[in-house]
């Protein structure tokens, strides 16, 4: 087994644990490279099926390419697809800086959707290497009633024994890609020939490394037009993956506060 085989096997194990231990679970689909890999892994785990709903919490501000991708593959992959709308921006805390406000709006949309479908848990495609706060996450990560994350008191997690016992009312985030890196995602996408949105490839010297709302997501300098070139670029770059995501950078602890409040 090579590194990608090991990563795949671990993710499948996590999917199967969560599906067996937790009732009423759904997957979050952001349409980005990571959540596409996540769907792919679910199909591997469940032998071609995705036996739970796949939900896109829509800000209405994604790139047109992303919507086209979503509509095509929700159908082609046979997903139980749900689209949930976020509340209008006016309803979100006005004191937040602009980009964080957009993120907070998405968090509000997420809370609403969880409430609506009474999901006990959600699969989310976050990775430890994306960002320092995510590095501290657990694979099975319990949230408070409002979706808050208490990073000060997280359950122990060892020997692939995840926390699967919860008092009623607990919401759980399950992270099947937590142990993957950005390079792993691309190498796996390449190996498995997973469809990808074109925005990730360089046009006129720029490409998107991470996709979010179009008004707060910016491309990075790049000449990479193929996956192997992206991988080569990532092996040498010192720019962080989320550098094009404005909401991370508005204050020193912006992202941590977003996450503590329930953001992915």
């Amino acid at each position, binding site marked *: *087994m*090579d*590194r*990608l*085989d*090991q990563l*795949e*096997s*671990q993710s*499948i*194990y996590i999917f*199967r*644990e969560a*599906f*067996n231990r937790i009732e009423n679970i759904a997957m979050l689909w952001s349409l980005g490279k990571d959540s596409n890999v996540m769907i792919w892994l679910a*199909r*591997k*785990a*469940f*032998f*071609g*099926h995705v*036996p739970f709903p796949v939900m896109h919490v829509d800000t209405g501000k994604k790139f047109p390419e992303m919507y086209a991708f979503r509509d095509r593959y929700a159908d082609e992959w046979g997903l139980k697809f749900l689209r949930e709308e976020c509340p209008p921006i006016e309803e979100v805390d006005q004191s937040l800086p602009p980009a964080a406000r957009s993120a907070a709006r998405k968090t509000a949309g997420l809370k609403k959707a969880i409430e609506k479908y009474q999901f006990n848990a959600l699969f989310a495609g976050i990775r*430890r*290497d994306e960002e*320092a*706060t995510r*590095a*501290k996450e*657990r694979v099975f990560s319990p949230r408070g009633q409002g979706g808050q994350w208490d*990073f*000060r008191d*997280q*359950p*122990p*997690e*060892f*020997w692939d*024994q995840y*926390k699967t*016992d*919860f*008092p009623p009312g607990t919401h759980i985030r399950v992270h099947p890609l937590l142990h993957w*890196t950005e390079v*792993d995602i691309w*190498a796996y996408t*390449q190996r*498995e*020939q997973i469809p990808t949105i074109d925005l990730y490839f360089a046009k006129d010297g720029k490409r998107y490394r991470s996709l979010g709302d179009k008004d707060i997501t910016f491309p990075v300098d790049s000449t990479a037009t193929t996956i*192997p*070139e992206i*991988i*080569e670029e990532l*092996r040498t770059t*010192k*720019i*962080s993956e989320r550098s094009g995501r404005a909401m991370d950078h508005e204050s*020193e*602890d912006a992202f*941590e506060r977003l996450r503590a409040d329930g953001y992915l």
Partner: protein
Amino acid sequence: MGETNVKLASINPDAQKARDLLRIVIVGHVDHGKSTLVGRLFHDTGSLPDGKYESIKAMCERRGVPFEYAFLMDALQAERDQGITIDTSQIWFKTEARDYTIIDAPGHKEFLKNMITGAAQSDAALLIIDAAEGVREQSRRHGYLLHLMGVRQVAVAVNKMDLVGYEQEQFDLIEEEYRDYLRSIGVEPTFVIPVSAREGDNIANGSKSMPWYKGPTVVKALDSFLPNAPLVDQSLRFPVQDVYKFDQRRIIAGRIESGSLKVGDKLVFSPSNKTAKVQSIESWSARDDFTPPTEAVAGESIGITLDEQIFVERGELISHEEDAPIETEVFRARLFWLGHDPLTAGKSYKLKLGTFETPVTVQKVDRIIDTSDLSNSESEQVERNQVAEVTIRARRMLALDEFTNNGRTGRFVLVDNYDIAGGGIISMEGYADQRSMIMATKSTNITRVEHGVSIEERARRNGHKGGVLWFTGLSGAGKSTLAVALEKLLFEKGYSSYVLDGDNVRHGLNANLGFSPEDRAENIRRVGETAALFQRAGMLAITSFISPYRSDRDRARAAAGDSFHEIYVKADVETCKQRDPKGLYKKAIAGEIKEFTGISAPYEEPDSPNLVIDTAETPLEECLEILINYVERNFRV
């Protein structure tokens, strides 16, 4: 065209190949400089994102605090405020040789669970000791826990050498003290390296200040470690994680923990002991040219279908027939406890053993281990952050391995209420594998013959019913004395009875059995079956065996049914030691007899015996009177 060629040529041929990844955990006493060392490691290997160093420096200036490399790791607001690492955090760096995941585990005692979380995910460990402070409680505890968690590759960095003037003498003292400690728990650290994380000595680059040190830098030491490999060459262990029926296939899904299997293999499911053959190995692929595999090995998450529709469920452990796992209701464990409430003898918890979950009771806390000097103490409770040896009993059969035989199926966790509160590794010391007992009926084509004489007719003729009086208790409790005296009294009263005694049956019926846990269990099984035959023949069988294990006595009870009477001949160990009729306690205490019940092996008291005879408190004559009355009441027709 030309441009495309240029592009391709610039691609590193290795880029397509995934680079090796090693996961290392960094542990040590609080304030011994772990985060600083990690920050330095990043900086010196050129692994920091652009601008990170500058932005942290600027942040420090804004706050008016001196720059520390530790701030690079401790990115969380709360941590900067408290000055200690709260949770285990992961971060990636690269050397020329390969990629690394660093798991920074906090040194503060309160956060042990995070250190365990970190250590469990790692291939190797870097343990840090402050050169000025020397070996501290947490240095030892972390060394001990790494061993318990199964981490076998350990390098030690003696940090802050700049604070002790880079003196070799100080380093040598610490190295010797710590190597001695690690050796006493069976760990041989590969490297002990003098470093200064703050100044950058012996991290990625050598040290001009310590020319006396000839060994590798931290980076070189790490590069010499190997990633954990799946246990491909061991016996097959494949826990059932789930059974799916999404389409016409009924797929048994799970991850192979060790060994391998192929289509056509005959499999055993433990503890149900059902068998079936592998019909197919199922796998999904989007590729048209995909052919399903016919073989699967350790580490792979797979699915199989079977040739027979047997009922199996999550939690069963799949193996081949010839090297199946141990089956037992009881095991011993060395565990660490993380629970808010102490682990308490007699209390129930949920056991998670692979994918199997079942309630268990802590039968006994055997000893508390002080990890700083390895001394033992006795207690009924294991407090948070303590390490102990305990005996755990389930209400149903478990399938497991000893940790020394299989690192993956020989470990477990305990759940208290909703929380994972402890983890441990399994030993079967003193306990027998029950598998051969469960699978006892080897012969086929056997039919029971109906007897011409009924049980009632025999009882009428004899004037009493047949039965088994099963005496259990410590050696020296008085079982044989009472059994023989009772036999004589019963004879005088017209009963037909016979004593089955330990030493006597070992001369004949059980002459081929020794004293291993399995042989002891078989010894009791045969006595139980023999006693049941006596009972069916209409006699009173009186058995006089220590029979210390509940599972053995339960089996004897099952053989004789309702006419089985468990009689606990009770005397405390001190009393028995003083009596010591065969001189056995003396030998056991001197270590001449191993696994002697009450001294070096457990005695499991009966849960609800039919009768208790307390020979420490009651004179012999009175004991006999109680017994006679009991027999007259229960067996006289």
